[in-house]
């Protein structure tokens, strides 16, 4: 280091301002540690707020409203054809949703005394990092938290650099509404954005490499969503691989497997996300990302380097903001010397489509695969009063309980509001409640939450 270089000394340097990073930073500050966040965009929120969870949910809300309007025709209410002002929609999303939340986070950072430094953080050793970009400087830290998150994966074997080929970030910008959209990937991102573009007027074709949508999720939970998507989308091609993409004038020609070639106005590549761990200078520390780029951490979010911690997507699956936030708090408390641990049993997952799919803990297929002694309860929403009043009787609530103790090990829900309902399931599994506990708790009537109680009750009856 040259004499005269500006060196900043802090207790904790957090690299990345996403949910994991800002949760760690806020908790560190609360525990009296001087903390800075180094973020390339000089902002908090990360992919979640700026190009992920939040903007997609704003658009999915619009999509849900449009879906309800369409469904209202069944009840004898017709609003006519919706007119969509794309400029106004973009502005609402950017200013009233993302902007408002961003200002809130910046305010919290200020109140807690967390400084945000703009630039790319690159480790120079286990005690210092260099900030490249807007505010170049050196930061010497006692502890660092790697919270660099993840980025969309490119399409393997058929990547094409074109304005017409978007990843989820580009799709959420909503720069125009393509008439024909190809969505590559039948996971939650492809399904959510496919539904958004459909609601806004695009004709969507979805391609999934495996033989079903939402790989890994119990089929009975996926089925109502798959049925609805079959109605919404022009075509769903399962077990199909996109082998090439070619730009041809104003359109993209996609070749499916060894077969036909179809032209689209835009293509959305949603084949997963990969951790961001390269070019961080981690080779100057004792942290060694694995072959996939993930950084291994222990229960306290500690890496192999005594001074370096890691949280969020960069540490592995499931890459979900709420997992990162919990990890951030654990890392902060561990840094402060508290006996913290990420001993979380469940990380609930939600697909915010219409209908929503949510699950947590043990799945039915996993239980069968592992030969676990479980009892499974399924409650069809066709028997739910509330579902009937909503005109949505296609939902399902499922409990997976230990056969001997009745302890709830997993919950799966499909239907409108599943994303909110799963919270009770997560609490039940995390707190080791039994089916009896759920069955004997009064649930408001008539609500969809009753379906959890009803499912639990079926487990109490003599087998």
């Amino acid at each position, binding site marked *: 280091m040259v004499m005269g270089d500006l060196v900043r000394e802090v207790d904790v340097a957090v690299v990345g301002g996403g949910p994991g990073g800002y949760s760690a930073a806020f908790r560190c500050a609360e525990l009296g540690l001087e903390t800075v966040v180094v973020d390339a965009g000089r902002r908090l929120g990360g992919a979640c707020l700026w190009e992920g969870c939040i903007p997609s949910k704003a658009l999915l809300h619009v999509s849900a409203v449009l879906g309800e309007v369409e469904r209202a025709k069944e009840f004898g209410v017709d609003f006519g054809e919706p007119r969509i002002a794309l400029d106004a929609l973009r502005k609402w999303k950017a200013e009233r949703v993302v902007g408002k939340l961003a200002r809130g986070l910046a305010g919290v950072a200020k109140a807690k005394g967390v400084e945000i430094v703009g630039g790319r953080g690159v480790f120079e050793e286990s005690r210092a990092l260099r900030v490249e970009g807007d505010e170049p400087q050196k930061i010497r830290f006692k502890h660092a938290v790697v919270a660099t998150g993840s980025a969309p994966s490119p399409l393997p074997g058929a990547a094409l650099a074109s304005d017409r080929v978007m990843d989820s970030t580009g799709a959420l910008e909503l720069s125009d509404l393509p008439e024909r959209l190809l969505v590559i990937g039948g996971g939650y991102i492809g399904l959510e954005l496919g539904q958004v573009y459909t609601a806004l007027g695009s004709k969507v074709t979805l391609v999934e490499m495996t033989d079903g949508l939402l790989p890994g999720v119990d089929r009975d939970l996926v089925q109502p969503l798959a049925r609805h998507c079959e109605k919404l989308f022009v075509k769903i091609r399962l077990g199909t691989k996109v082998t090439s993409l070619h730009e041809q004038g104003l359109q993209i020609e996609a070749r499916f497997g060894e077969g036909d070639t179809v032209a689209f106005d835009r293509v959305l590549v949603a084949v997963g996300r990969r951790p961001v761990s390269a070019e961080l200078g981690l080779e100057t520390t004792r942290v060694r990302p694995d072959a996939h780029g993930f950084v291994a951490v222990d229960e306290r979010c500690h890496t192999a380097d*005594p001074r370096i911690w890691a949280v969020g997507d960069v540490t592995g699956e499931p890459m979900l903001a709420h997992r990162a936030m919990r990890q951030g708090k654990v890392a902060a408390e561990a840094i402060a010397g508290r*006996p913290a641990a990420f001993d*979380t*049993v469940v990380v609930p997952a939600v697909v915010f489509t219409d209908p929503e799919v949510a699950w947590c803990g043990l799945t039915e297929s996993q239980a069968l695969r592992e030969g676990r002694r479980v009892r499974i309860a399924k409650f069809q929403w066709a028997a739910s009063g509330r579902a009937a009043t909503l005109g949505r009787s296609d939902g399902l609530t499922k409990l997976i309980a*230990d056969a001997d103790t009745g302890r709830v090990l997993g919950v799966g829900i499909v239907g409108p509001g599943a994303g909110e309902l799963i919270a009770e399931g997560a609490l039940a599994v995390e707190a080791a409640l039994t089916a009896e506990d759920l069955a004997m708790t009064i649930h408001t009537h008539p609500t969809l939450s009753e379906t959890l109680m009803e499912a639990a009750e079926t487990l109490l009856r003599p087998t």
Partner: protein
Amino acid sequence: MSRPFTLPDLGEGLTEAEIVKVLVQEGDRVQEDAPLLEVETDKATVEIPSPVTGRVAKVHVQPGQTVKVGAVLVTFEEEAGGRGSTPPLGTTLARSAPPAPDVVSAGQHTLESTAAAPARGSGPVAATPATRRLARELGVDIHTVRGTGQGGRVSDDDIRAAAGGRPPASAQPAAQPGAPEQPATRKPLAPVGAEAPALPRFEQWGAVERQPLSHLRRTIAERMTLSATLVPHVTHFDRADITELDAIIRRNVEPARQRGVTLTLTSFLLKAAALALREHPQFNASLDPAAGELILKRYCHLGVAVATDRGLIVPVIRDVDKKPLIELQGELAALAQRVRDGKATLEDLRGGTFTVTNIGALGGTGAVPIINYPEVAILGAARARQEPVVLDGRIVPRVLLPLSLTFDHRVADGADGARFAAAIVRRLERPEQLLLEW
């Protein structure tokens, strides 16, 4: 070869330091000069580097613990290449003999069970997240706890039982087998109301010495702070002409001694106060601010401040108003002796309704004591002296006793205090009243 590493001499007369952070874990390999721990002295936070390259076999300290110079911090298993014999940071290892490795390992289970070890075992334990956290805080491996609830559910009580009433890991000093001295733990006084600002570094003006407070000193500090912070104190001063009482005491010293009793002014003060309290029951009371009520006590148990070499203790004599003076005096002497011998029972020390403190033996012309909360008043007496007094136009020598009555202004006003003090003074000035009233 295993080698213990002790807290080096930090210089400048510092004898102890608080562990702020432990930067290594057991099993870690560390390079020579890599940071091991962060310690805080009265002067600064210092990072302590590793003296050797090797594996950390044992960490003996944890954050929050105060350790003396020479206490074992870490035991290393050295690897080839380390500067094995070089003493770190100018410490003189010879001075503090390193403990034998087998002694260190004898304490291993204690240390392990208090460390925040990652949970072992497989599968989620049937316990809520809060219970799991409690287990970590108490240093209990939840996987080893047998749940007493339905289906083996582990409750908070199961964890506490497994911990055996251990204090939280963060506040617990680790056992230091073989270490030269047990580490002292710094514990803040219980806070009351406003927080005290940070102290300046007094060392910048000269050498200082830090002494831990004794248990009694802490109790006194906490209770006095509570009373002084909570209660609006007001003090009324008066003087009693005890010429006659003084003569009575002098005349009866010898007869009393023959009955094994040393007659003192204090017993008369107690009796006078007890009888005056009958007329002014609001001073024999406690305020219940939550209920907005004054609790008047239909009994009269008086506390007497007794100075011991450990600090102030206030034993209580029961039913002072009902006891003959000579009995009172005997009881007072026995109680004071028990207190000084450290043999007072809990019963001796509680239940007081009003306190008398007589600092006359030590001189002075007056003092304003702090109320013994939750009582509402305290009577202070300074040294009685012969003073010139104008009586019927003539200057005559009289024995005057300076008194101060300090009371809770929420309960009584200045006029009440003046009347109550006058009622005490009247009895002291006309000692026959002390007899006639009972």
